[in-house]
């Protein structure tokens, strides 16, 4: 079982002081420790953006992939070795911009993986352009008169895509975030944890102050996470009060459950039966 210390690496950290990524990384480590997992039992997949360095700083199996392709790679790793706890990390640009094509399909396909979105509502690494989650009117380098395209709502998008576990965390509420991460990792199926994470360098609107004044916990508000309609209603809240916690949680068969070839041992340990293959080939000879 890994300790917090063992989950760290000796790599120099290049995130800006105060970046929400620090809390997020710490929250993930704490959740892994709580689950009692060894380092070799966890695989992290990261995309392109500031979050991508997570695979440099988290001492588990890691794969830093190209822009937008966290979900296909994470899904395939899980299919190849279902004993791994697979966590995909992506920024709001990676997940909901260039990689958006994969998101609804991963949700409806329902592989048993968790997607953690470092959602700072801006392109951070490329220094402050409009991202798909940037709110209307927000002035950025590519929207000097204010963003005029409607923002993607990760929560309602996930609900509409039939995701089984849909949650939002905030790095300013660490204990709550660790609980959420743990619950997501324990969930059997595709789990989205969209994490509000201030970008201290490039987003001067959605700051710690902004969120501290607005966030409230769904768990303390009488929300029923099996009620899809209620989940949609909560997902629309933003300007005055911003809900964090589990919006929706309903288990259904995972991708592996419906795929006979994935039953039993993980694919990586299955032997290829050359006798059977030869017989199959001879049928077409």
């Amino acid at each position: 079982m890994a300790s917090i210390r063992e989950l760290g690496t000796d790599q120099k950290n290049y995130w800006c002081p105060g970046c929400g990524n620090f809390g997020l990384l710490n929250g993930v480590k704490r959740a892994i420790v709580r689950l009692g997992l060894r380092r070799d039992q966890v695989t992290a997949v990261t995309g392109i953006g500031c979050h991508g360095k997570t695979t440099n700083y988290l001492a588990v199996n890691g794969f830093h992939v190209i822009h937008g392709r966290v979900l296909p790679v994470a899904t395939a790793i899980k299919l190849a070795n279902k004993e791994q706890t697979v966590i995909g990390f992506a920024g709001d640009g990676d997940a909901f911009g260039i990689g958006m094509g994969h998101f609804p399909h991963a949700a409806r396909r329902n592989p048993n993986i968790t997607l953690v979105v470092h959602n700072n509502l801006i392109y951070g690494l490329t220094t402050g352009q409009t991202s798909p989650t940037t709110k209307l009117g927000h002035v950025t380098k590519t929207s000097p008169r204010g963003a005029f395209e409607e923002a993607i709502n990760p929560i309602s998008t996930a609900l509409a895509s039939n995701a089984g576990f849909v949650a939002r965390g905030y790095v300013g509420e660490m204990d709550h975030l660790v609980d959420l991460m743990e619950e997501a990792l324990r969930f059997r199926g595709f789990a989205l944890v969209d994490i509000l994470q201030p970008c201290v360098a490039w987003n001067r609107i959605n700051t710690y102050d902004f969120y501290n004044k607005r966030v409230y916990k769904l768990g303390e508000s009488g929300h029923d996470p099996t009620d899809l309609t209620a989940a949609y209603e909560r997902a629309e809240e933003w300007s005055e009060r911003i809900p964090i916690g589990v919006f929706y949680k309903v288990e259904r068969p995972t991708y592996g459950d419906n795929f006979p070839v994935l039953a039993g041992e993980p694919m990586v340990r299955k032997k290829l039966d050359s006798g059977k293959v030869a017989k199959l080939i001879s049928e077409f000879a």
Partner: protein
Amino acid sequence: MSEKQTLMGMNGDESVAYATKQVNPDVVAAYPITPQTIIVEKLSEYVADGEVDYEYVAVESEHSALSNCVGASAAGARAFTATAANGLALMWEITFIASGLRLPIVMAIVNRSLGGPINIHNDHSDSMGARDSGWIQIHCENSQEVYDASITAWRMAEHPDVLLPIMVCLDGFTLSHTMENVLTLPDKVVSDFVGEREFITVKGHMGETELRLNPDVPLTFGPVDLQDYYFEHKLHQIDAMKQALKVIPEVDAEYAKISGRSYDLLHPYRMEDAEVAVLGLGSTMGTVKYTVDQLRDEGVKAGLVKMRVFRPFPSSDLVDALKDIPAVGVLDKSLSLGAPGGPLFEETMATLYHLPKKPLIANYIHGLGGRDTGPQLIRGVFESLLEIKDKGEIGDPMNYVGARP
């Protein structure tokens, strides 16, 4: 008589953006990627400041950026975008659509090495990967060339005999983020020079019409083209590339009249009596020039040939430049893994193969992933070439300079 010009301090990215502002195209598709991001940011500022009236579309990926340009260009607009490395790789599918549909889009490529492993620094693996995609490629040595090419590219691309998209290539960071003095023309001179986009006339569903989408005279862009005509349409593209070899110098000559700066497909330097010469692309050629001057002072008969236009490949100019040189070194800043040599080396070899008497030619792969290529390294290349010349033979033509053994 050249026009009065203003000296500005700009890096390569800003030079692209400033020239593009002066051209004032109709549509700019923007998606950030290092080291290109400065270009689309500046183009965004110009919109905000009301200095231009192009449509600025902040798209969700590079695939969408070039698709956006394809749609705009088919509708008759002047469309511009910029990218680098994996961004160009993601566009790959659409690069062939743009050229195959004969859409004169202009795209700045801020050359960056193609992952993996992930690297944001300069080499030519991105644009070399697109060398067969049917785009004209202009490689710039400095920001002045970047500025000038970002203006002339429109006229070359849109020429009725050409109608091909163009990549204006500049080395990431070395040019894109390094400030230089750049002479710029007045806005009016640039807009007069680029003029309006020309259209050829084609046969549409309802008779003759200009080659662009127009609801009054409908056309279909990009329909299925199978065994019946696809081959002939590819021959048209081959012909367009041949035509571009004539058109590019014509546009350059016209531009020289207003700017006082003339360009060639291929630029030879101190080649008259050269015994050893280096051929290459992009910013490295500035360092080669510096080294050639030093070597000449020391009595070494060294020269260089800078290839400015890589597509279409200026074969006959290359033969003229190199045919009498005893030993030639080809600098490649990219790999063609598993191939006999780097892309520029292979094409040079193929071009000179038919000559009865040809130079000894060696390949020097350098600068991968942003590895610095300093004058000492280039001096080493010339020393190696002198040895080849003296011996009269080459052992292994492949050299990886500046890499750990």
